[in-house]
């Protein structure tokens, strides 16, 4: 069972639909208690970083951190990945999870911003053994739509270039993040979500065995 965190910003339908397509049950919640007890957590995201403020004030941030510490698989998508970093200059007062170093910043490029469309993800050396990207060829195309981007720091498993090189996927232990939208990235995206489901199933099996 995948728990999708609803923070009243945007649209969860597409992500949920993709999990349904993969035969994975999901539930949507904004309750910190349900988040704490989840078997697998997904934080989808579209929109402004300030919407993450709601996760802090509602107590969901603390619940997510507790779940992660217990080993619960956690996937952040788009702003959901950015929230795994320390913060974002889009809303400097909004506290991120601080799992990866540095703030997210607006693109510094003469190209059009937002970065909208299909672009390639390239594995980093660290991403060679990525669980999330297993079976996904380097330079696969995925769909992006964002104006802020995360820095290339420890834990980055794939990067993408749009005027500058930025983090398009992160991974550390049970924490996974993607800047792009796997639910909108065709077969490549479905493969990534399936990899997350597989990891989550292993975790659930281990947990019930204990």
């Amino acid at each position, binding site marked *: 069972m995948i728990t999708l965190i609803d923070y009243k910003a*945007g649209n969860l*339908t597409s992500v949920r639909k993709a999990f349904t397509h993969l035969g994975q049950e999901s539930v949507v919640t904004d309750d910190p208690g349900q988040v704490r007890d989840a078997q697998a957590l997904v934080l989808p995201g579209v*929109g402004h970083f300030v919407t993450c403020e709601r996760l802090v004030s509602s107590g969901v941030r603390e619940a997510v951190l507790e779940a992660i510490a217990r080993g619960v698989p956690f996937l952040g998508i788009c702003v959901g990945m950015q929230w795994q970093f320390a913060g974002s200059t889009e809303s400097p007062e909004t506290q991120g999870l601080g799992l990866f170093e540095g703030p997210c910043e607006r693109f510094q490029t003469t190209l059009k911003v*937002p970065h*909208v*469309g*299909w672009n390639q993800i390239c594995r980093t050396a660290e991403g060679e053994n990525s669980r999330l990207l297993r079976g996904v060829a380097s330079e696969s195309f995925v*769909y992006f739509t964002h104006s802020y981007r995360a820095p290339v720091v420890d834990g980055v498993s794939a990067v993408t270039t749009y005027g500058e090189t930025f983090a398009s996927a992160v991974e550390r232990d049970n924490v996974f993040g993607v800047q792009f939208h796997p639910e*909108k990235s065709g077969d490549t995206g479905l493969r990534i979500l399936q990899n997350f489901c597989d990891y989550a199933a292993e975790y659930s099996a281990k947990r019930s065995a204990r």
Partner: protein
Amino acid sequence: MSTGITKRIIACLDVTKGRVVKGVQFVDLIDAGDPAELAHLHATSGADEIVLLDITATSDARPILIDVVRRTARQLFVPFTVGGGVRSLDDASALFDAGADKISINSAAIKEPGIITEIAERFGSQAVIVAIDAKRKVGAAVSAENTVPAEVYLAGGRIATGRDTVEWAREAESRGAGEILLTSMDCDGTRAGFDCPLTAAVATAVSIPVIASGGAGSGDHFVDVFKAGCADAALAASIFHFGIHDVRELKAQLQREGIPVRLPC
């Protein structure tokens, strides 16, 4: 090493009464098939996005057919835009709930531009496309600011607004639109090529992506609209429905011409 963002090929389904149709210059509609089937077919053959437009919702003064949207979205895992007859935040919410990733607004945005901001604030700018149906103004004054005078039309090209296309595109961006879908009424359905000068005028006037529409008839037309027209994406309907072009074949041509596209698809 990554080459950067690719140019998008968007397959458009013009829908009325639950069926995909195609007309020439917005009239003389003929049946082209089932929306869900065609959307899936285009996505499989390499379309980067699917747009479904309910072309008679506004003129019939009725809401978009939500069931068609839900059915089409179910097996679609590329970006899916829905437009036609979106008049309020509630209309938009219902479409997102049915599986749309973006909504396209046209007439309502002209009549009540505040709706752009309202939807963008709730669902994010990336979810809001402002569609502009434009017709060249013959004999209008050309200025440095605006080299391609064209008038904005609404209600599926039925009503002239007196608004200038470039100026309206700029306003739409400032109000929170995430993309502009620019349809040339002069070129639509002619298969004689996109309006490249108008597309370039809009694409260079705004910093958000511009999707060119109207006039696609051959692979060369797409090359032109990406090069001369500075378009970020190009949309076509009829040439795909009747199998004249496969998206894969089109993309192979674009790649040969040095235009970055998503391959293999």
